[in-house]
């Protein structure tokens, strides 16, 4: 358009386009402008606590002896008022066995599969909507869930077996004195009830792994730093997640080489079960019965007591010993 006159329309069209995009650029720059760097601060999240204890039931503890885990659990639950005292119709229940290692049931590094199966069955009978069985394993999850026998037992009883999935962890503020923001498997954040199914086994730092230490398995990410202040970490976890019920089945107890064990020579057969709705009492009882530890040798118990999580004086609770 050498000699041609620029038409008004063309002029408006061209300058309009340029002006429009300029406005967009200027507007964007103004909107996004950060005149000074925001001082580094992390927003303090609301502290999340998951207290899934039954409000109206008093703490109690049952010790059962016998050969058949299913019958021992049934009897123990009956003595505590039946499973319906804890699980209501329509509940979503998370059941957390210890499935940390690629070990077989008789090596006593993981919860016994029959216990998991029976607890899931009881929950289903009580009308639970969904029972989730999950754990964040140390060894390859596929192998752990299988070799422990728990995967099969839980599936057959009707549970949803969830292997840890990276995408399912969410960061929450536990508000503990050691544990603040932690990655937690999301099932624990939404469930109505939580049943902890630990095993009693040796641990080089705490001497024994029981119910509250089993809560390590709700965490994702790197949890190995927690050992630096292990008693406080255990306490913080117990404070964050307060279980509806804890059932510790000690068919066999791993006395040495924990927490993985391996050799059957490290295993002692006890055929006992401890059930309680007080996780502190359960740990105190398990430590004493299976490892001869007084509650002063398990410092997390005292710390937990002072937070009101339960009572380490398990003999003072209404407790009952039954033979099945």
């Amino acid at each position, binding site marked *: 358009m050498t000699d041609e006159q620029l038409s008004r329309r063309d002029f408006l069209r061209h300058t309009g386009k340029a002006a429009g995009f300029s406005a967009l650029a200027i507007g964007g720059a103004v909107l996004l402008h950060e005149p000074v760097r925001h001082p580094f601060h992390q927003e303090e999240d609301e502290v999340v606590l998951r207290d899934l204890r039954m409000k109206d039931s008093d703490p109690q503890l049952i010790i059962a002896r016998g050969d058949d885990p299913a019958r021992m659990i049934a009897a123990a639950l009956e003595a505590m008022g039946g499973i319906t005292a804890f699980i209501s119709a329509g509940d979503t229940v998370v059941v957390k066995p210890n499935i940390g290692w*690629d070990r*077989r049931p008789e090596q006593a590094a993981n919860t016994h599969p029959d216990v998991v199966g029976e607890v899931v069955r009881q929950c289903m009978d009580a009308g639970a909507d969904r029972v989730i069985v999950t754990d964040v394993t140390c060894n390859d999850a596929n*192998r752990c869930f299988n070799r422990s026998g728990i995967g099969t037992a839980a599936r057959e009883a009707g549970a949803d077996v969830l292997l840890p999935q990276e995408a399912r962890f969410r960061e929450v503020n536990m508000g503990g004195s050691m544990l603040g923001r932690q990655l937690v498997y999301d099932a624990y954040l939404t469930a109505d009830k939580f049943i902890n199914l630990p095993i009693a086994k040796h641990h*080089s730092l705490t001497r024994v792994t029981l119910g509250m230490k089993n809560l390590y398995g709700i965490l994702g990410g790197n949890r190995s730093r927690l050992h*630096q202040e292990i008693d406080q970490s255990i306490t913080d976890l117990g404070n964050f997640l307060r279980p509806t019920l804890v059932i510790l089945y000690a068919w066999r107890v791993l006395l040495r080489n924990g927490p993985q064990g391996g*050799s059957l020579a*490290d295993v002692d057969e006890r055929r006992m079960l401890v059930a309680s709705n007080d996780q502190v009492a359960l740990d105190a009882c398990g430590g004493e019965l299976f490892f001869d530890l007084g509650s002063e040798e398990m410092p997390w118990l005292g710390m937990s007591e002072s937070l009101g999580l339960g009572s380490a004086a398990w003999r003072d609770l209404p407790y009952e010993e039954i033979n099945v």
Partner: protein
Amino acid sequence: MGKQVLPPKLKLYRRLRWLRRASQGFFFVLFIALLLRTNIDTLDSPDAIPHISAPVDLFLELDPLIAISTVLTTQSLYRDLFLAVIIIVGTLFLGRFFCGWMCPMGTLNHVIATWKSRRMRGIKRLEQNEWKPYQRWKYAVLLIFLGAALFGSTQIGLLDPIALLTRSMTLVLLPGYNTLTHDVYAWSLHADLGPFSFLTTVVGWLVHGVLIRAKTVVFDQTFLILLIFFGILVANRFITRFWCRGLCPLGALLGIMSKTSILGLEKHESLCTGCNHCSLHCQGGDNPQVGLPWHQTECHLCLNCVASCPEAGIDFKLFPSREHSTPSISLSRRAVIGSAGAGLLAIPVLRSSTNPDRIPDPTLVRPPGSLPEREFLSRCVRCGECMNVCPNNALHPTLLQAGPEGIWSPMLMPRIGYCEPTCVLCSEVCPTGAIDEITEAEKAWVPLAGREETEGPPISIGTAFYDLGRCLPWAMGKECIVCEEWCPTTPKAIYFEEAEVQTRDGEYTYLKRPHVDPAVCVGCGACTYACPVKGAPAIYITAVGETRNRRNRILLDERKPPAYRTDHESDVAL
């Protein structure tokens, strides 16, 4: 205008061309499916031994180049590499059907080269489809690698198309896809999608049903691998199937074999109108058009030429007249001797640099079952199957840790993943036996209850060492013991010394300070993996003490010979 009536022969060729396309699609999908399926079957009882039932190595085992190269280096045909005979016999009778009908790398190149392009139309396309001297390069490439094989070094995996594609897919593309789907899944899990929440299920299924891996995986130094793969694909935009025509050593091998083919192209000069449609769609650059000699050794049997000849002037026939074709690859004797000689000489030159056979690189921890280094490199084709199958993402390609001769061979990086104590999957998938097939009982890292007896001493891959300046109880007066907790052996290789230490405030406290017993340690790396000391770990693994190398030892206490086969005589003697 009525419906065009095609001559019956053209109709037949067009149908056959569709058959070829279907075959390419089938084998490509099969290839990807097998890569994704490189994982254990569903486990359903504590007694189930993790096992892979799918023939995940199928393509590598069908590959005659891998078979021939490892036969040259080891004088034996490992396991199912025997399957390569199928392709060899087929090629001897029919020509390079593998390139045109089966090869997943060829299919990828085919699709990209055929994609419409302004640069590659009409006369330009015709010109670049004519046979060119660069097509002889691939024979030189082949000879260089075969020369190296004569010297006992398997280098063919660097450019063998199946190994190259398996590696590129496993280490770069699939992890990329994996990360993408995981991120979308994580987002969709925690977002409120309203009526679209079913999408979460779909993506979840993609992540866990199809991809199987529950973890996202990452691999070390994949950039170079991606760059080469990308370069090969992009080259198609300039010259159709440049890789297949000019560089692919497998194509060269099959080309040589196709010289005896009884199937060939026959040209009927009298029928030809010179329309050049045949050449326009040619994949191999083998001159199907009248006037130039047809190159038997370059033809992929894609059938594009015969399916586009409107005059039926060319034909594929058994025992064709060879009047208008040549079986020659036109490589001079000088070039043949030069290439093979170069390959042969390259190996001693490469070995003149420091290499793991002489001075083992401390970080070069090989997977359990690996043969002694020299034998290992005579077999490893760098396909990456071991890295694909590893449940812990522990195996990664080397760069120069194994010397220039061992680039992209597998090594353990325990900071990313440790060697799972009961797992022997890498030894199960290794197509060439560089990692010898071992069992759980032979690996013998942990007692398996009910099967307490293991077959001989454990197969050690290295030994752990403490960096006392970084270890919490040693250097910082803090409790830890995580390494001991993770140590899988019985008894544990890590034990404690109870120490009274003075704190900063002058008070005294007791701490457990860890030590490694090198006679028990198997080098799994679980301690390094779990070590809470970020940055450099406070406990690390080096290859010393590995069962496969008797010279790479600290302790005088000699372990018994390993349960698995090694070719070192000295290993058998004691």
